[in-house]
């Protein structure tokens, strides 16, 4: 998206996946159905975000995307609220706890459910990781280098939606990781996605596991990890925002 502020939370995919997930719970769908509907919800939200951005600014990157993502995300979250309002109490409790994001219900079945789309999508993303560098250029510039910008961008969006949907379906909405970790990884290994993508994947896993383990060791209660990532992630992104502000997000 040529913008470091863009993460799954800010373009609506997390909210869309959340809506898909709660709707599947509302209709008592099995776990596979939760993944499927979360994927449809996440992808649908992304389509809405980019369509709105194109209507407004005619571009599929930059500030119009972020703003559109905020609007679409808010709408989908409102729909989540509506589903919760209509749900009976016993379903509501499950939905609320699931939405906070937690590893408490981890079991082998969920690992398999998560592994297949994540590994498949992740493997394709790893193969495409150098092409991500090309998307950092302007669309015309990248197209002149032989990149099918539209196809590549939408392919990446679909893959990201799949992975996010899989994650949301097993552990709820865990935000800020997709925004904070790549920034930290970029500071360690540089912007080349050949190194950045695997570094982000490793660092993201280590960060969230470390955070969850540390909290479990310190506190007796089960604090949903989605709450922790927001509590720790926000100051980190504020710090990164301040640190990079002198260069600006877009260097030209």
């Amino acid at each position, binding site marked *: 998206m040529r913008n470091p502020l863009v993460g799954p939370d800010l373009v609506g995919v997390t909210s869309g996946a959340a809506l898909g997930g709660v709707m599947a719970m509302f209709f008592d769908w099995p776990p596979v159905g939760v993944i499927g509907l979360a994927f449809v919800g996440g992808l649908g939200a992304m389509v809405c975000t980019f369509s709105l951005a194109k209507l407004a600014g005619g571009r599929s990157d930059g500030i119009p995307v972020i703003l559109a993502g905020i609007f679409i995300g808010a709408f989908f979250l409102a729909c989540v609220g509506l589903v919760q309002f209509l749900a009976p109490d016993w379903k509501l409790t499950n939905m609320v706890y699931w939405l906070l994001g937690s590893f408490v219900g981890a079991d082998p079945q969920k690992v398999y459910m998560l592994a297949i789309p994540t590994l498949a999508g992740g493997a394709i993303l790893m193969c495409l990781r150098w092409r991500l560098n090309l998307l950092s250029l302007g669309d*015309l*510039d990248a197209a002149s*280098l032989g990149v099918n910008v539209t196809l590549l961008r939408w392919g990446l969006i679909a893959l990201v939606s799949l992975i996010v949907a899989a994650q949301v379906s097993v552990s709820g909405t865990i935000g800020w990781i997709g925004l904070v970790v790549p920034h930290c990884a970029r500071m360690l290994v540089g912007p080349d996605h050949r190194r950045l993508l695997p570094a982000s994947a490793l660092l993201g896993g280590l960060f969230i596991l470390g955070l969850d383990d540390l909290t479990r060791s310190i506190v007796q209660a089960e604090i949903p990890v989605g709450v922790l990532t927001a509590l720790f992630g926000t100051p980190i992104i504020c710090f990164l925002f301040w640190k990079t502000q002198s*260069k600006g997000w877009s260097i030209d």
Partner: protein
Amino acid sequence: MADAVISFIHLGHAYRPGRWIFRDYSADVARGEVFALLGPNGRGKTTLLKILLRALKPAEGQVSVKGQFAFVPQLFQVSFDYSCLDMVLMGRAKKVGLFSQPSQKDEETALETLERFGMTDYAARPFHELSGGQRQLVIFARALVAEADILILDEPTSALDLKNQTLILDWIGRLSRNEGLTIVMTTHHPHHALAVADTALLMLGEANHIVGQPSEVLTEDNLTALYGVAMKRVSFEHGGRHIETLAYVLPPIGARKDL
């Protein structure tokens, strides 16, 4: 023209029906020549470039581009601080498989090309730390590693100081005459076209254009009609060379009645 690498016939484009930017433009660009597009702001120079780059479908007319092209944009907006080598390596996109990574050979090619432009020492430097002229050279290197036959340059000297302008113009001449590359460039500087181009196209109006050798078409009358500013052809001797250039005549400051 039999050996034209770019050819457009009765070319026209309108972003909205009936609101033509230009129409009925025709020209051929021969292999190895420098072709300059001149026109005031909004006349459609970049639109014509986009059509040649196949990023835009023309509203009418035909375009033929034979060969691989590479684009050097006017402004480089890079979202992250890639190194110069990373930037040049991106030029290998057509040579690297969709799911593949650049090989050692690709990196060596990129480094060798940087060396040709005297930019080896800048390989590991962040691209955004370079001067305007140096960035242009890196993007030229990127175009060369793409093994393009045709370079399409959008106002290659517009953001540069005089020294860097002469550097880039020198490289344009070298790439055309020594490497045989065909170069299409837009420019706001008719004296640059006079110095380096083999053919110039003046976009005089919606359906009015002139194509020809710069020495013949970049006349005072044509340029005054093109830019709405009085232009003068100036010639003088310097360093044993006969120099022909163009100057525009600034009206007395404060004398314009339309402001």
